[in-house]
């Protein structure tokens, strides 16, 4: 972090890249500010990649799997058992496996883009995609809650049982705010913010290295090595966070669905 901070301290001329640089010019029409962007291309590419990989892995359906099928089964089994079955449990979990599976791998691949050289752009470093996914999940779990418990669901979700009546005026508004207002916001912004911050750090480190190497002072040139070391460490951390955020997003989805399914027992 010291290395990262150096250029800002020293230079009068260095201006770190900001949010503006996160919005690349559109691919089609070329260079326009509002057209078909690299982000969109990557999202579509991710759909093709995930679909083709898993269809190829699942297609053979051998009892003794080959390498590809084994990898696919491991990935599928991870979401199916470690997320859906463990969190939702019981007999109901199979219904939600497709949603959780799609969420996990859609987010995972779109995040990992940020760790691949040249592509180097996590799709969710733009907030729109995160809003969409969080909204899909929001609608889903509220729908499940209403379907399961009827309109009584809103009472079950906001009025905790076993709380003395005089505390209810405080608790109920808190529950409403935390469950129905804050939840989708944090759900989407958590993903967006981590991806954006990671991308921003990569950009700042990259431009910082470039700036320092261009300096005439030898010591400043040498300091770029420090930035590089810091950037590599941050890159590793970011790669971890990319996977982790996909997991967290899916896990929270499973928890919300479970809460909606079993609202009467909470």
């Amino acid at each position, binding site marked *: 972090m010291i290395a990262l901070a150096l250029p800002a301290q020293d230079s009068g001329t260095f201006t*770190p890249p900001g949010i503006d640089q996160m919005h690349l010019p559109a691919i089609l029409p070329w260079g326009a500010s509002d057209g078909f*962007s690299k982000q*969109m291309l990557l999202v579509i590419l991710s759909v093709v990649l995930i679909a083709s990989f898993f269809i190829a892995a699942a297609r053979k359906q051998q009892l003794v799997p080959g390498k590809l099928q084994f990898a696919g*089964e491991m990935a599928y089994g991870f979401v199916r058992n470690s997320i859906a079955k463990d969190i939702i449990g019981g007999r109901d979990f199979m219904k939600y496996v497709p949603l959780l599976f*799609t969420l996990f*791998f859609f987010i995972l691949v779109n995040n990992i883009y940020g760790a691949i050289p040249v592509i180097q752009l996590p799709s969710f470093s733009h907030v729109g995609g995160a809003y969409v996914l969080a909204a899909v999940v929001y609608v889903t779990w509220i729908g499940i809650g209403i379907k399961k418990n009827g309109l009584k669901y809103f009472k079950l979700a906001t009025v905790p049982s076993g709380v003395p009546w005089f505390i209810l005026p405080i608790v109920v508004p808190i529950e409403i705010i935390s469950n129905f207002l804050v939840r989708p916001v944090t759900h989407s912004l958590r993903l967006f913010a981590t991806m*954006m911050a990671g991308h921003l750090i990569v950009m700042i480190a990259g431009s910082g290295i470039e700036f320092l190497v261009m300096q005439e002072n030898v010591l400043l040139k040498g300091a770029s090595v420090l930035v590089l070391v810091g950037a590599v460490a941050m890159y590793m951390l970011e790669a971890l966070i990319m996977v982790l955020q996909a997991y967290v997003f899916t896990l929270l989805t499973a928890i919300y669905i479970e809460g909606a399914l079993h609202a009467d027992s909470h």
Partner: protein
Amino acid sequence: MNQQIISAAAQGAAESANPLVPNVWEMGVVFAGFVVLLYIVVKFVVPMFEKTFAERAEAIEGGIAKAEKAQAEASAALEEYKQQLHDARAEANRIREEARAEGAQILAELKTKAAAESARITEQAYAQIESERQAAVVSLRSEVGTLATTLAERIVGESLSDDERAARVVDRFLADLETQSAGAAK
């Protein structure tokens, strides 16, 4: 120092669009991509994986069931053989007992039969002896009579040709003899 970066970034951000305001087209693309992927997953990926899992579970459980069945059959067969062996032993014992009983019975029958036969033979022998004795007595009686008469004729010199009277004399004589011998036998 971090704050400097953040403030620098914030300066840049201040001039640009709010990062929390989404691009509607990007949202549309993400939504469409997600829905397409979800459709593919629901329609193809999950069913195929689940089918494979189910088949595998069935294959393993089927193997176990088959092995259990084979074992059950084997133990049933063993039980049956043991039962058969037991039955066969019992049967053999029974046959042996029967044979022994039958042998004893046959022996007893034979003994009875032999005894009866010997009794019958003895009886027959007695009867034959008796009849022969009777015949001997009869022939002796006439012969002795004739001899005695002849002898007496010769001795007395007198013809006792009157057969009827001679026979009467001989009979009386013999009767006397018999009573004498009977008295002697007593």
